[in-house]
């Protein structure tokens, strides 16, 4: 299914899918890590959810919605790291993080590949993933969906999925809310059997089989649909307002969806 007539790219579809992950959040701090999450969050603020609170990625809440390469705008608040931690615990936050690995149970790893004692590849460290996932809504963005990212079991659990949270007790489950995983191939949640990762929709032009092949565990695909294409309004906002330089194509190369 080609959309060559409108020139909708896969990156545009991803941006709209990220935006949809934030559309029902109400007035909370949307905290995107990386290019596509930032694009999607700002798209949501300009379309489905103008109440979102967004930041410059450093220490300021922005009153306006600048392009993703710009930082300056009207300032509406101060959010240094210490207050980020306050808001995590307060709960009015939805973070979209990256994931070097994500597994069947919705656990995420950004700490290290291999054993913790002697990693094959040291990554960032846990960062805020353990705290995010038991305090506020958490989603993940995966720009290159493949079986090394979508694995049966992550090497190290940084972000906590629902099963691990349940095993840790009500203190962990009470605010555990793994909302969406958006990849360059599709959109997922953890609504499969026993809270496992489930395919919600395949992006236009991507088959369910293709996604299953690129995934290192068996996906629940029953009921999977097709990810919606961005509206004309969204396309104009993405291309003319938020990302006229096409920074999004560095993450998801330009191709017709």
């Amino acid at each position: 299914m080609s959309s060559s007539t409108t020139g909708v790219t896969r990156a545009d579809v991803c941006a709209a899918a990220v935006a949809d992950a934030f559309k029902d959040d109400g007035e909370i701090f949307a905290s995107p890590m990386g290019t596509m999450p930032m694009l999607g969050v700002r798209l949501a603020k300009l379309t489905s959810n103008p109440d979102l609170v967004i930041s410059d990625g450093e220490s300021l809440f922005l009153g306006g919605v600048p392009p993703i390469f710009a930082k300056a705008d009207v300032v509406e608040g101060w959010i240094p790291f210490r207050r980020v931690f306050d808001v995590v615990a307060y709960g009015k936050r939805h973070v979209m993080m990256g994931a070097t690995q994500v597994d069947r149970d919705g656990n995420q790893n950004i700490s290290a590949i291999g054993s913790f004692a002697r990693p094959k590849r040291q990554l960032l460290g846990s960062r805020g993933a353990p705290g995010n996932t038991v305090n506020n809504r958490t989603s993940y963005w995966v720009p290159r969906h493949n079986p090394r990212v979508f694995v049966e079991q992550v090497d190290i659990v940084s972000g906590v999925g629902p099963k691990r949270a349940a095993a840790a007790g009500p203190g962990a489950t009470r605010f555990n809310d793994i909302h969406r995983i958006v990849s360059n191939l599709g959109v997922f949640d953890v609504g499969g059997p026993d809270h496992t990762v489930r395919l919600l929709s395949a992006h236009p032009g991507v088959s369910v089989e293709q996604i299953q092949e690129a995934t290192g565990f068996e996906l629940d695909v029953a009921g999977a649909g097709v990810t919606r294409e961005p509206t004309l309004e969204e396309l104009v906002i993405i291309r003319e307002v938020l990302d006229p330089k096409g920074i999004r194509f560095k993450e998801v190369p330009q191709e017709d969806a």
Partner: protein
Amino acid sequence: MSNGKPRDKRMSIEEVVAELSDGMTIGIGGWGPRRKPMALVRAILNSDLKDLTIVSWGGADVGLLARAGKIRKLVYAFVSLDTVPLEPNFQKARQEGTIPEVVELDEGMFQTGLKAAAERLPFLPMRAGLGSDVLVNNPQITTVTSPYPAPDGSFEELTAVPAINLDVALVHLNRADMHGNATYLGPDPYFDDLFAMAAERTFLSVEEIVDTAGLTVDTPVQRLLLSRMMVSGVVETPNGAHFTDCRPDYARDEKFQKAYATAAGGTDADWAAFEQRFLTGDEAAYQDAVKAWQEEQQ
């Protein structure tokens, strides 16, 4: 009668390092590649100090100390240079197993551990850590059951984050007076006040030492982050956070950071050359070497 004037705490970089000893637990302020007390870190590299426990939201401070074999135990939540996401010296140390003991925490747990220390508590409860491998890889960290019921009547089990008590905190701010009152002028205070209160003693480096009155002459009083009662010594180290960010005095030196990361991620000879050029002399020699390097890049 005294004149009521508090004591002068000005010191040299060398005098600060002389106050440190083998096996100490040292907290390093700032955040990743932002406002790190790099002049003090560089001086530690050039000292005989060893077996240190380093506590840091880490950047090149951790990378450099790890590469120099100074760290016996590392407490961190991440080590990153931001624009170079993975710190090559830290990666190398972890992958080669040269840091004997590592404690990887969630970012917020790290803050809570410092807060417990600052409040002289043995621990503080929080949710972060529950269900994650932070608790698996750190069996010394346990949980505590709330004595009070949650709204659903359950008694929640929470992470009991142990206090991170520091022997010494090293922090870098923009301005201070000779007594140790200090302001940050950039976008974020980070947690330098918390490091100071979690530590027995705090040594502060700053871009500029000014009169006490000068601290607030053109700066809101809310930017006074450290009170002198938290500070044992003050060192003036202009450009002392280089190559990390120290706005508004200077932004991160991205080009130099790239050169650092390239050398750190390169061959042993690449690293030896970088070390030889930049890290074998004192702070003045470092600043001269950086200036010469920057002129070459023009």
